[in-house]
């Protein structure tokens, strides 16, 4: 007679292959950790050398330039009547926040030497000025004076030029 053989009746200590599983788990953990680090605000590592510091200052200046130029374009667009209040003020706030975060991050990096101190002072001054001028545009926008945003944004032209010049100066 055919009989079903039950697995339980043959208690066999078999070997499980665990290695691939552990590797996969490790890989997964690594990716999740990297994402967690990446998705939270741009992490700023320490700068060990002048070159390192210079590179970080370039990145910060580029972000600031982008914010300044975005605000200029927004102001221009709004003054031309091509955007409405909610769009303009939300976009302005975003750029203001981005610049503030960049400024804070850059200020918190420890400059490695005296040469870096000069760089730090120059850039922080530029970032500070840009922040003030963007805030002025945002204030004007919140008051509903969309038509006069271009006027409020005039000082930003100088900020933009200064940031570009800064970028060129550290290019050399």
């Amino acid at each position: 007679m055919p009989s079903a053989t039950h697995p339980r009746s043959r208690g066999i200590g078999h070997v499980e292959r665990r290695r691939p599983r552990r590797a996969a788990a490790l890989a997964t953990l690594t990716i999740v950790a990297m994402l967690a680090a990446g998705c939270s605000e741009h992490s700023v590592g320490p700068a060990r050398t002048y070159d390192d510091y210079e590179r970080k200052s370039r990145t910060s200046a580029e972000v600031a330039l982008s914010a300044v130029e975005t605000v200029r374009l927004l102001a221009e667009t709004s003054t031309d009547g091509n955007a409405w209040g909610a769009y303009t003020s939300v976009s302005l706030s975003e750029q203001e926040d981005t610049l503030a975060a960049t400024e804070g991050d850059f200020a918190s990096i420890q400059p490695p030497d005296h040469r870096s101190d000069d760089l730090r002072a120059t850039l922080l001054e530029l970032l500070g000025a840009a922040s003030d001028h963007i805030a002025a545009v945002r204030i004007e926008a919140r008051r509903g004076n969309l038509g006069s945003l271009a006027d409020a944004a005039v000082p930003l032209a100088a900020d933009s030029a200064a940031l570009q010049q800064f970028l060129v100066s550290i290019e050399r």
Partner: protein
Amino acid sequence: MKKVLGVALGVLTAIGGFVDMGDLVANAETGARFDMNLAWVVIVGVIGIVVYAEMSGRVAALCGRPVFDLVRERLGPRFGMANLLASFFINMLTLTAEIAGVALSLSLVSSVNYLFLIPFVAFLVWLVCWRMSFVMMERIFGLLGLCLVVFAVTVWKIGPDWNQLFSDAAHPHVPHSETVFTYAYFGIALFGAAMTPYEVFFFSSGAVEDGWTRKDLGENKINVLIGFPLGAALSLAIMASTHLLLAPRHISVDQLSQVALPVASAVGRLGLAVVIIGIFAATFGAALETSLSAGYVVAQYLGWPWGKHSAPRTASRFHVVVMMSIIAAALFGLTGVDPVKVTEYSIVLSAAALPLTYFPILVIANDPRYVGPEHTNGRFLNAVASVYLVILVLVAIATIPLMIITKGGS
């Protein structure tokens, strides 16, 4: 006549449904940062999705099996499970990005902080998954997504030197300010955005839900062959618009609102309204697709009843997974993670996971016991699909190292 109308509607839906948060972000970012030097990747990506979406649609029509069912059958339970975990995780990132995208687009008209809008958007997404019929859902958001055509209008209004534009796109090089690594990284992002796996999960499951048969094969082919390339053309228009208007001003795109800026600037208030409706529809449609995909992959791996064609009561576990996924994605979005960053990671990781999903499709599309001897892949299709499989594997291998080297593309 009615037939023609149906086909046209299908194509329009495919065009509007092609672009999602990933395409918006990736194309706008690369346009501003790399000019048209990565345009070719969009073309490569769309050919890939055309080839594999057609296969998955054909398989679904001929044997009634959706993609993730076949993933487990062909890869076995272990690799299938690995694929399930990876796909589900990436899908959650995508869902988070889409929900945040909807909330952001609403914040641009209401000036309410998008974080306050996320719970509302999540509820709306769930409600549509729960109550709206599949066809209606696909049509409404697909057609509204066509508003994104305004990007093409934008490019035309800017009035670029067309010869220059095409020649830039045809002669790609790595810009001076960028390294080979960042170039490759953003190339992978664009590729992943065009070929996101949830598109085939959703596409094939939708084909099964709509009860496609042999008769629908022609329509499947037309939708995919015309709809997707035109959708990709929209992606390229987004890229061109930021390349033309934002790149010269040194603006880099790191907010969704900046994607709409070229349109406002060049087309005006009406254009801005249209593009925001388009962004809303594209992200909302994709939020629906990804939340349903979360349910599809789990239910199909485990053999549960699934689908939204009949009452939720007949697929209760499926609906529970969909609901929980939406809640989880909303909670993740509420932690204040940067939506644009989440989008970037979701498309890059999608690219890394692509072979796991596309490989089984290719095998099944060649198996006569599933599609019948007369509907297996032709020689030419197989050659193209094989080339893509090799590309997918290479991309998958390169993704994680590139992610580390470029520190996530910064």
